[in-house]
């Protein structure tokens, strides 16, 4: 039976990306403190990616990780010193691998850019720059050893696998068949370690082999067969009978005919010890500058289903709750079978229990979508490291509350704005070393990233101890841009908040570093789109804090129920500014017969829900009802409604999946009485109404 491996691709990619994240994290830690355990973790991550990619025939990834692993192995056994250059190289490799995996995930061809890095690795490993053409998959050592080993030879192999080898999917039988493909193979099995039948663990390997192989192939080709198990076995190769002189130019002199893997590792590093390591590293480093940074491509919409990893405890809670639900249901069922009026009390308490269970179940299901924000935070230390080097600033990044959970969808969308704000803090917030020292601060700036829950929201604070924002400069700029009139007294917070207005270039105001592409207005818009807000507080000379407030989930909304004629709509509570009875206000009409409400000098267009959605109504006078002033994307509209009803949390059902997307509506929900209520999308509604007004105006003209 053929197994379709492609079904496992997504899992492989997911795990590999996680592995790369781990590698990145550990490399950054390694920079601060050399710990063997870090190296081991990095090695394990690389090893898993290598194994997986080979299984799925992503040979380029496998080839690259193999070379990477060789270097890591040297770091692990202490024969390679861990320098900043090596960490740089490894970080670049992580980027490169990420790029390769993204391409594979999107079904694209992997470019050969990685070969350049492979060449540097080989150069570093051999310590000789003229080994450039060596792009072998098993690194430089085997190549060097096999240079003179062509011609028909007999080899004696000793292969002693670790007991767990079978459990890792590595099958000696398959390797021996591959060896048979190279030439005549005579296997001799050693069964002395096989325990009694009773003690035998059927999944362990107790066998070892002596193999004789006649082949014209090189030692490298033979070793390649054992490539994937070289860490999981003791393997030695010995050439029989033939002239040994040429076997291993770089081989151990004590045992000219034999070169075990362990020896190979030492041999590999030998030239390194002779040539000044620093010089090699330096040369390598210089070249690295030219390597194009593998950009992580923007996540494409692929037809794969997104998946989520859920802690087993969360699933267990769900199962418990469903169990409770079943018990309550059977209790109620029994009550229904023999019901009489004396059991009303029991019925009521049963229903109450049912309600509690349902609510708990809903909360638990929602919790399944919750992931720790650490997933987003973890990509920032790397950025801070790179950027602070680029800006020649000294910056410490402190992360707090990375275990705070939020909805997966929210998290996916908060990544970019958050990155932007941290960049902003590094770029414009924290001052240069000189300026800091002149201001009597320590030369190292601090950027703190903190997440915590508050009510139904998650709060993310990005705080720097930099120069702060000067409200006078902002105000001057705002006057220049015509955003405020000169001489008007505007509160300080409002002035500072202006750096997030569209068209307000912070770069020109706060510092002279510019050219960052997206502005702060985009950050604000993205956060608003998620139903969140962003506040800024800043103290000149002490620092700035950006506070992002986000809803925990996009699936539940705090809604205000409103009535227009006989229809009930939901307005997101966060978007409501105020509501005013129509009887108490003055309506004005402007061009196109559009009614507007004048409030503190600004004209707010009035959108009549009944007109907008063509609901028949028997409203008698214009003064009946009230208006709710709502805000979205910095635009206000006044929604004309008949009555404000209660506030409640509503579960959002997508319109697209049940009907089709409609401008002005973000979804629907089902009310307590079973009626469907539409949820207004304020931004869409305001666009829709202005389009309609334009149309009307054109018709009139």
């Amino acid at each position, binding site marked *: 039976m053929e197994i379709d491996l492609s079904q496992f691709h997504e899992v492989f990619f997911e795990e590999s990306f996680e592995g790369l994240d781990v590698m990145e994290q550990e490399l950054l830690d390694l920079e601060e403190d050399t710990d063997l355990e870090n190296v081991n973790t990095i090695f394990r991550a690389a090893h898993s990616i290598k194994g997986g990619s080979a299984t799925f025939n992503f040979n380029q990834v496998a080839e690259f990780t193999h070379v990477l692993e060789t270097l890591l192995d040297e770091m692990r056994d202490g024969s390679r010193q861990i320098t900043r250059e090596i960490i740089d190289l490894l970080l670049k490799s992580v980027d490169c691998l990420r790029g390769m995996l993204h391409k594979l995930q999107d079904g694209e061809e992997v470019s050969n850019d990685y070969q350049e890095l492979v060449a540097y690795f080989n150069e570093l490993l051999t310590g000789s720059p003229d080994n450039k053409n060596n792009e072998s998959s098993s690194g430089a050592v085997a190549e060097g050893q096999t240079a003179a080993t062509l011609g028909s030879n007999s080899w004696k192999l000793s292969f002693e696998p670790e007991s767990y080898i*079978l*459990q890792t999917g590595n*099958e*000696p*039988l398959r390797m*021996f*068949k591959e060896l*048979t493909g190279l030439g005549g*193979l005579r*296997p*001799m*099995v050693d*069964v002395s370690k*096989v*325990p*009694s*039948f*009773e003690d*035998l663990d*059927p*999944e362990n*390997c*107790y*066998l070892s*082999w002596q193999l004789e192989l006649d082949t014209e192939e090189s030692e490298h080709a033979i070793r390649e067969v054992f490539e994937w198990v070289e860490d999981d076995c003791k393997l030695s190769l010995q050439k029989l009978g033939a002239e040994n002189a040429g076997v291993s130019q770089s081989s151990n002199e004590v045992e000219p005919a034999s070169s075990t893997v362990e020896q190979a590792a030492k041999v590999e590093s030998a030239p390194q010890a002779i040539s000044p390591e620093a010089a090699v590293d330096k040369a390598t480093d210089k070249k690295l500058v030219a390597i194009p940074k593998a950009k992580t491509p923007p996540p494409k919409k692929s037809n794969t289903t997104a998946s989520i990893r859920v802690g087993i405890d969360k699933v267990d809670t769900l199962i418990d709750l469903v169990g409770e639900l079943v018990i309550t249901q059977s209790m109620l069922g029994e009550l229904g079978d023999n019901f009489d009026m004396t059991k009303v009390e029991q019925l009521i308490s049963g229903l109450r229990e049912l309600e509690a269970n349902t609510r708990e179940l809903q909360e638990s299901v929602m919790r399944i979508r919750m992931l720790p924000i650490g997933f987003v935070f973890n990509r920032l230390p790397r950025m801070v490291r790179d950027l602070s080097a680029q800006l020649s600033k000294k910056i410490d990044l402190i992360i707090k509350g990375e275990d705070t959970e939020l909805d997966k969808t929210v998290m996916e969308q908060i990544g970019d704005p958050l990155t932007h704000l941290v960049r902003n803090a590094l770029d414009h917030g924290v001052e240069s070393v000189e300026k800091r020292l002149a201001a009597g601060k320590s030369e190292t700036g601090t950027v703190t990233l903190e997440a915590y829950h508050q009510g139904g929201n998650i709060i993310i604070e990005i705080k720097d101890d930099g120069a702060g924002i000067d409200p006078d400069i902002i105000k001057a700029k705002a006057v220049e841009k015509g955003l405020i009139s000169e001489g008007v007294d505007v509160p300080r917070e409002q002035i500072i908040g202006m750096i997030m207005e569209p068209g307000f270039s912070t770069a020109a105001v706060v510092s002279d570093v510019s050219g960052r592409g997206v502005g702060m207005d985009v950050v604000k818009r993205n956060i608003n789109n998620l139903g969140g807000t962003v506040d800024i507080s800043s103290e000149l000379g002490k620092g700035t804090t950006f506070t992002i407030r986000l809803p925990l989930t996009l699936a539940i909304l705090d809604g205000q129920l409103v009535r227009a004629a006989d229809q009930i709509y939901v307005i997101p509570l966060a978007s409501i500014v105020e509501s005013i009875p129509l009887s108490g206000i003055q309506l004005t009409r402007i061009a196109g017969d559009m009614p507007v409400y004048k409030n503190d000098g600004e004209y707010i267009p009035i959108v009549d829900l009944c007109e907008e959605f063509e609901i028949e109504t028997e409203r008698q006078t214009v003064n009946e009802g009230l208006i709710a002033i709502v805000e979205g994307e910095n635009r206000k509209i006044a929604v004309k409604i008949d009555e404000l009803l209660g506030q409640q949390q509503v579960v959002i059902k997508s319109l697209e999946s049940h009907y089709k997307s409609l401008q002005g509506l973000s979804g629907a929900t089902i009310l307590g009485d079973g009626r469907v209520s539409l949820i207004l999308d304020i931004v869409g509604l305001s666009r829709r109404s202005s389009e309609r007004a334009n149309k009307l105006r054109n018709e009139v003209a």
Partner: protein
Amino acid sequence: MSDKTTVSLGTALDIMHAAGLKERLQSALAKKPHIVLISDKVERADTAGLQLIYAFKQEVEKQNKQLSWQKPTNGLIEASKSLGLYEHLGL
């Protein structure tokens, strides 16, 4: 009553089935002095499977019982030869 008992090795004598097969072999060993391994359907055999049979054969001999093969397939024989276990298994 016959003194033989049979154990079918199924289509796959491999690591996936090794634990289950071990139990069946164990109970067969407790039943009769002569165990016949029905191996005419074995399509796939691997190290774990063959190693298990080897250990079983040792056990059978230790208990002075008898083990025989019934129609081993080419695949089974080839695999045991590749691993150098052909003779050890008495195939």
